[in-house]
């Protein structure tokens, strides 16, 4: 087949599309930088440059095949993990959500009502619309605003001097009905002062609560207290250490880690969660492996009939989407009307409290996880068992070895090496099996006496999820710090898997 020459037009079209794509990426990078993600913006610039170079030079032809994959991996897998860990060194969280400039704006835009300037008002109906009349302090005449529909959206009304108070005004009851809309109205007096509703009877002048000083500090207009920006903690603080909210995001170094290590209310539960995470992962892998292998051996027995029926039925738990099975178990294990407790009550007269007793809750998790995970091990074991030569087993039987002896001296040693990387992968998976925890127990029951909510059944991953996205108020920084700890642990497991994979590769080839 002769290689068709690309036409000049399509060549330039490709070039133009590439240029457009690169420019689009660079533009997005700029916007991303503006909205406060400089790191992600930088990454986009790198991506744009790499794409531009690789797709415009013939020299890098081969790299065109791998660039798309590597780019998505860098943007949405590697970068987020690194960035999460970086956040672990910041105070990012619900109190420090904004950047410095934005948090300063928020503080400066807060207003206080100056009660000294308060004066009574009334509302005049003008056809479909309303006017607001604000009395003068000396009681003679006042200011009448322009017309407004008084819907609940914020509106600013100008006003003019009038000499006498209007005769027809709305009754107090009708004014109360309008109170929501009135709260949104700002009336500007001819002098330029802004008045807002201050209660049901009065309008009053407003003024900013804080005023920015030359040295970047802000002063409270009522108390005359001065607050300085403290970039160590990310808050405006006065001399006594009082803080203004909102604070801003700032780098606090090892602060989160210090909190984890020094605060007993965090360290204690962390340690117990860590131990449970390891225990949970090890026990899950062990149970699934043992049961899966036993079933695989049974199904491998040539004398057994209906093997394919058993096989299909036994992998059903693997075929049903896990989130459905887990939620089904959540219902079945319900303390009062769950079927499992009804059955246990009928058979043995006991009603274990699966949801409030720590050990029972953990047992429940292991039961469910074994139920979910054994079919995978069974399927893998069935594959590996086929590779064990029949002759060796026969020879052992002839020498007089029992089936158990044959299994443990001939079969098991041959299937363990290819199983090791899969067992490690399974361990790594269960180490972070937060779907199971979040859907079944949400980490409950809680460990008593902790500073941040931590559960007896929480694993490190679900604990992090709870700190960041659930009950304790979005402490992204602290969650990031714990993520680093998980990251280091997973790295160790990953390295072990990697070595194990290299080993089996060596054996296979």
């Amino acid at each position: 087949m002769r290689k068709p020459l690309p036409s000049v037009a399509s060549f330039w079209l490709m070039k133009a599309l590439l240029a457009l794509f690169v420019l689009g990426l660079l533009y997005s990078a700029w916007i991303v930088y503006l909205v406060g993600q400089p790191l992600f913006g930088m990454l986009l610039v790198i991506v744009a440059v790499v794409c531009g170079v690789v797709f415009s030079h013939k020299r890098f032809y081969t790299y065109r095949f791998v660039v798309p994959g590597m780019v998505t991996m860098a943007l949405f897998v590697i970068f987020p993990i690194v960035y999460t860990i970086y956040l672990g060194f910041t105070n990012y969280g619900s109190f420090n959500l904004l950047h410095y400039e934005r948090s300063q704006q928020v503080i400066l835009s807060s207003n206080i009502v100056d009660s000294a300037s308060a004066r009574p008002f009334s509302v005049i109906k003008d056809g479909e619309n309303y006017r607001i009349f604000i009395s003068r302090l000396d009681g003679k005449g006042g200011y009448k605003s322009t017309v407004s529909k008084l819907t609940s959206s914020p509106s600013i009304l100008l006003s003019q001097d009038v000499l006498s108070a209007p005769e027809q005004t709305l009754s107090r009851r009708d004014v109360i009905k309008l109170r929501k809309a009135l709260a949104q109205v700002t009336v500007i007096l001819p002098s330029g002062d802004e008045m807002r509703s201050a209660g049901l009877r009065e309008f009053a002048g407003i003024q900013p609560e804080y005023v920015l000083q030359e040295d970047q500090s802000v002063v409270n207009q009522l108390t005359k207290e001065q607050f300085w920006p403290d970039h160590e903690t990310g808050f405006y603080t006065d001399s006594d250490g009082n803080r203004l909210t909102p604070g801003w995001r700032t780098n606090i170094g090892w602060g989160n880690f210090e909190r984890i290590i020094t605060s007993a209310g965090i360290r204690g539960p962390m340690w117990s969660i860590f131990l449970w995470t390891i225990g949970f992962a090890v026990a899950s892998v062990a149970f699934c492996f043992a049961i899966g292998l036993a079933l695989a051996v049974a199904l491998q027995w040539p004398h057994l009939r209906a093997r394919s029926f058993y096989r299909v039925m036994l992998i059903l738990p693997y075929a049903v989407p896990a989130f459905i099975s887990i939620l089904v178990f959540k219902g079945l294990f319900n303390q009062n009307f769950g079927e499992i407790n009804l059955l246990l009550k009928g058979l043995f007269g006991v009603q274990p409290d699966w949801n409030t007793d720590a050990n029972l809750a953990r047992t429940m998790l292991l039961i469910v996880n074994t139920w979910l995970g054994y079919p995978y091990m069974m399927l893998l074991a069935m594959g590996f068992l086929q590779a064990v030569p029949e002759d060796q087993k026969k020879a052992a039987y002839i020498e007089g070895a029992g089936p158990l002896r044959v299994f443990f001296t001939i079969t098991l040693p041959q299937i363990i090496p290819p199983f090791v990387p899969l067992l490690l992968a399974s361990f790594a998976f269960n180490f972070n099996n937060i779907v199971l925890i979040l859907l079944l127990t949400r980490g409950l029951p809680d460990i008593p006496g902790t500073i941040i909510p931590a559960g007896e059944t929480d694993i490190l991953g679900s604990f992090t999820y709870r700190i960041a996205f659930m009950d304790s108020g979005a402490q992204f920084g602290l969650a990031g710090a714990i993520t680093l700890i998980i990251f280091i642990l997973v790295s160790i497991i990953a390295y072990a898997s990697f070595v194990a994979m290299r080993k089996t590769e060596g054996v296979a080839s």
Partner: protein
Amino acid sequence: MIVENRRSLMLKKIAAHGFLLLFLIVIMFPFLVVISISFREGNFSVGSLWPDKPTLEHWYLAFGVEYLRADGVLVKPPFPVLLWMWNSVKLALVSAFGVLAISTISAYAFSRIRFRGRAALLDSLFIVQLFPNTLALIALYAVFDSLGGISPIIGIDSHWSLILVYLSGIMMHIWTIKGYFDSVDPALDRAAAIDGATAWQSFRLVFLPLAVPIMSVVFVLVFIGVINDYPLASILLRQEDNLTLAVGSRLYLNEFKYMWGDFAAAAVLSGAPITVVFLIAQKYLVSGLSEGAVKG
């Protein structure tokens, strides 16, 4: 076959069947109970495995149809289950096609083209793949929260953001497909190269047609993976109408509003199709799973 005593063989067979059947009963218990509950009356239902007074109420509600009880009370469906299913299927389909496109091309390069950094990249793919995406949740939330400032399409509560994240989960699949390409006879692409095919042409005309079986395996794996995802979808989706099945179903078993019967019907309805797809594909899936994981 080893010659065995007939009597003891018989006993062994009975023991084996007994053990397997007993195990099956335990394993099947949840499925049977859930199906039974979906036909029982009420949401705190207690009763025998075969419902005393079977009702289709929960099934009507699961399909999004109002149900008129015998006493004249009109029950409205609590959640849009079918919409959630559609969301899940939509996300899963788009992600599966995207992942397939990206990972097949990369796998071809890793298997057939020698380029600098190939071995290092392959190793790093394997290592990165072992880090669960739950480690990245906080940053993903922060990044998409900011990206929402550019356009809500790539912000929080958009399906496109979620697809972008799912698209990045290609590491394992590149390995799986690469393992398959490695087993293709090198004579084929050498022949293509002699005929003057570029790398792209031999990929598209020789390898792509050959890869259909392994591609269907990866497709189903990604599809099921997306349907089953909870952590990512739960932080990136907010509004009830945007939820996927995995995130939405949890709302049924709220402590304060416990809808056990409605959940049962919704669970059977949504679980059945996925289960069937999986059972049909399982033979291929398993070989794909173990090959991709073991072979280098």
